């Protein structure tokens, strides 16, 4: 490798003096003899290789970042296999499959975009970038439908998975769970006078087991022990209101294994993080498109497109694994 550097290395002691203020010395127009060469590089080759190695190292961090979640997935699936085979059927394989194809196509257009940039085809570059962007949007739209459908069916992570939706109890509970962590209530330190007037509901810390249950369960549970009046309704979904609580069908399903919420927890965690990366990718694509329209890119200067493309491909690559792991469980 150093051989390459050595051979492409050019001495330019003289120019080095040429730089005035180091602020613009590093800019894209840093160098006297090549506007695309930053002052601290000696050759375009060196600069390009650095950029490539840089982005690849960044992609490596992305792999490990998602890697953590994949490990979590593996552990959960190992300790609760029944959950995964059961809950996977709540996912829409068709939508997932379509999304996979959308991402693949956007990857193709992205790769083409890089190619157009390398070969000075500005029109093709802009077209491909926009196509890729559309792909991203398409992916997110489909994801939106998937998510909203599940949320409507109460197929969510955490305790609210068990809260019968669309009744006062459920809503109150859901509301509490939403507010509890954010509220300064969670910020109560013992002996902190600042938090005096906080309603006790919000005063519950985020994940405290007892914050997890509908407010009515506690006393009824105890009342039974001490022979006081019968439990309030909605603690256990009575047949009466399970009809109107239609969306939460999984709640009536006696075959549902314990802890099924975990599947959706990891599902939302992984697809959500992936979604965030897609959004970030859209940002990158928009920026590239803008620069392409401005005419920044050419066969001499396409590194930005290339690296942006690599990022987009890794997003695709991760989805390629997410798809079978969530949608295709037997």
């Amino acid at each position, binding site marked *: 490798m150093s051989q390459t550097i050595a051979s492409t*290395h050019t001495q330019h002691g003289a120019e080095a003096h040429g730089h005035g203020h180091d602020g613009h010395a590093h800019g894209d127009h840093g160098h006297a003899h090549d506007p695309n060469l930053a002052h601290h590089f000696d050759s375009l080759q060196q600069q390009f290789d650095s950029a490539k190695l840089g982005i690849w190292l960044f992609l490596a961090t992305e792999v490990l970042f998602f890697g953590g979640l994949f490990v979590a997935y593996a552990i959960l699936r190992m300790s609760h296999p029944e959950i995964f085979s059961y809950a996977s059927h709540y996912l829409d394989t068709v939508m997932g499959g379509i999304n996979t194809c959308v991402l693949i196509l956007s990857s193709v257009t992205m790769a083409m975009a890089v190619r157009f940039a390398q070969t000075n085809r500005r029109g093709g570059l802009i077209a491909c970038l926009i196509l890729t962007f559309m792909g991203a949007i398409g992916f997110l739209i489909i994801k939106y439908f998937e998510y909203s459908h599940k949320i409507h069916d109460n197929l969510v*992570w955490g305790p609210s998975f068990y809260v019968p939706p669309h009744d006062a109890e459920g809503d109150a509970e859901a509301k509490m769970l939403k507010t509890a962590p954010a509220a300064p209530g969670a910020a109560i330190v013992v002996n902190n006078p600042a938090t005096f007037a906080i309603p006790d509901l919000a005063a519950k810390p985020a994940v405290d087991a007892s914050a997890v249950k509908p407010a009515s369960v506690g006393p009824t549970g105890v009342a039974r022990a001490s022979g006081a009046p019968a439990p309030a309704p909605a603690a256990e979904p009575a047949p009466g209101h399970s009809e109107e609580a239609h969306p939460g069908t999984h709640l009536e399903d006696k075959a549902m294994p314990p802890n099924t919420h975990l599947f959706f927890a990891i599902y939302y965690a992984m697809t959500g993080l992936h979604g965030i990366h897609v959004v970030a990718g859209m940002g990158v694509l928009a920026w590239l498109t803008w620069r392409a329209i401005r005419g920044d890119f050419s066969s001499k200067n396409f590194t930005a497109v290339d690296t942006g493309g690599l990022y987009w491909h890794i997003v695709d690559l991760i989805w390629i694994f997410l798809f079978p792991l969530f949608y295709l469980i037997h």
Partner: protein
Amino acid sequence: MTTIPLPSSGPVRDTIEARPEGDNYLTHTRGLFSWIFTLDHKRIGVMYMWSVLGAFLLGGIFALLVRTELLTPGPTITEDANTYNQWFTLHGAIMVFLVIIPSIPAALGNIILPVMLGAKDVAFPRLNLFSYYLWVTGAILCIASLAMGGFDTGWTFYTPYSTTTTAGGVIPVLTAAFVLGFSSIFTGLNFVVTVHKLRPPGMTWFRMPLFLWALYATAIIQVLATPVLGITLLLLIVERTVNIGIFNPAMGGDPVLYQHFFWFYSHPAVYIMILPAMGIISEIIAVNSHRSIFGYRFIAFSSIAIAMFSFIVWGHHMFTSGQSALLNTLFSAISFSVAIPSAVKVFNWIATLYKGSVSLTTPMWYALAFLFLFTIGGLTGLHLATLSTDVHLHDTYFVVAHFHYVMMGSALIAMIGGLHHWWPKIFGRMYDERLGTIACWIIFIGFNVTFFTQFILGAKGMPRRYYDYQPEFQVYHVISTIGSYTMAFGFVLTAVSLFGSFFTGRKAPANPWGGRSLEWQCASPPPFDNFAKAPRVGDCYDFSVVHWDEKTGGYWVDESADPEVNPGAGGAKAAH
């Protein structure tokens, strides 16, 4: 590795005088904004340095509070155990995430690495600046978390405590650690690329000074391990905010999984702290004994070996935590393998002193202190890697003492040694060496008084993170606290000697210690783009061509006498 022949023109001291007097990276541009928006690696490094030292002061204050509280069993200066818990948590979090991890790579590394390498800058100056401001963001969040109710989770954030505690500052501090992680990732990424792609002709892998090897190995860890911390903290934040339950046993999650995640980062993180320290020590010892470092390749490779091993030993933090017996055994076995490259390094350093010409400068004193403390820290690692003894010692003061010997006694002492080593280069001023040396001794003694007693405490069964303890332990705690005050005094002296240099210090020569690597070949302080001409790289550990120069009060390097630079010269020296 073939290298193109280089034009040999006169001695390198030309490069030093090659630019107008007083024009260096500090003076090249002026004004606040020329610092805030600077892309010069040296300035970014200097900003890092001051920030890290500031954080160190803060963390030190919390340390003293903790030690003072422990003077007596039960309440001493606070009635509330929770306050104490917040103190030691803050001390740990600040020292680990804000100080030790960025101290050497981000602060000293940023300043020295490109100069040492002979490059004009790091590969991605903007990213470099960005990572600094990430650090600042993290620091601000960390302080903010105090205002928002503090956090009492311990720096390890073990679930489910960290997800159920009512302390309000937990989420901010998790975010802080998350952000700091990315700051560290970007620094590492920058260094890997710089070392790979920005080496000037002649700077082959095996001509790189060992500090660069160490930084390179560190950077690899930073890039590969830190993302896992990122995702872990992210999951923790989600757990705490929207109750996702992956780590929450009440919901079928697995708290031990969190520990796996956490230590998969945090064990390698220990080497993020110690590897660059080892690099600095290699430099200081070689330069101050003015002889080629003994077994260059063994040291270089041991750095890489440690970096690689560091990823497969994290389980030794979990011997008692419900990890399976099989895994305990595996991890114990692998953990021992780290001992070997570490031992090799120590032996090589000792052997480097042999038949050297040792001048006892302040940096050298720090290096010797490092050797002493690191040996203890490393050897006590054996107790903790051994299964049966670790069961007894885990989570006691023995562990506390052990990692302070390694993180502080080694990493931080080396950082301060490095600071003294390169201070003249960075600021162009010599500090008062006598005062510096005295301070070094006081810190050294104070440190051992503080932490050696904690080995005994731990072995006797004093659990860590205790606000209250049995009376029979008090004597040890008192000794330990006295030691910590001594140490604090030592650090004050160090500060005096260093800051004094700005007022009373003489102007530093380009090469005050007789170093041979490239940073000693450009002026002190270096010009803003480091080298007027591409430097000619010789053997950075060949001191036979280094000569004392009375008139500059420093050394100069007769490059032309080095056959590796100037094949014409008939310098008699064993090539290797």
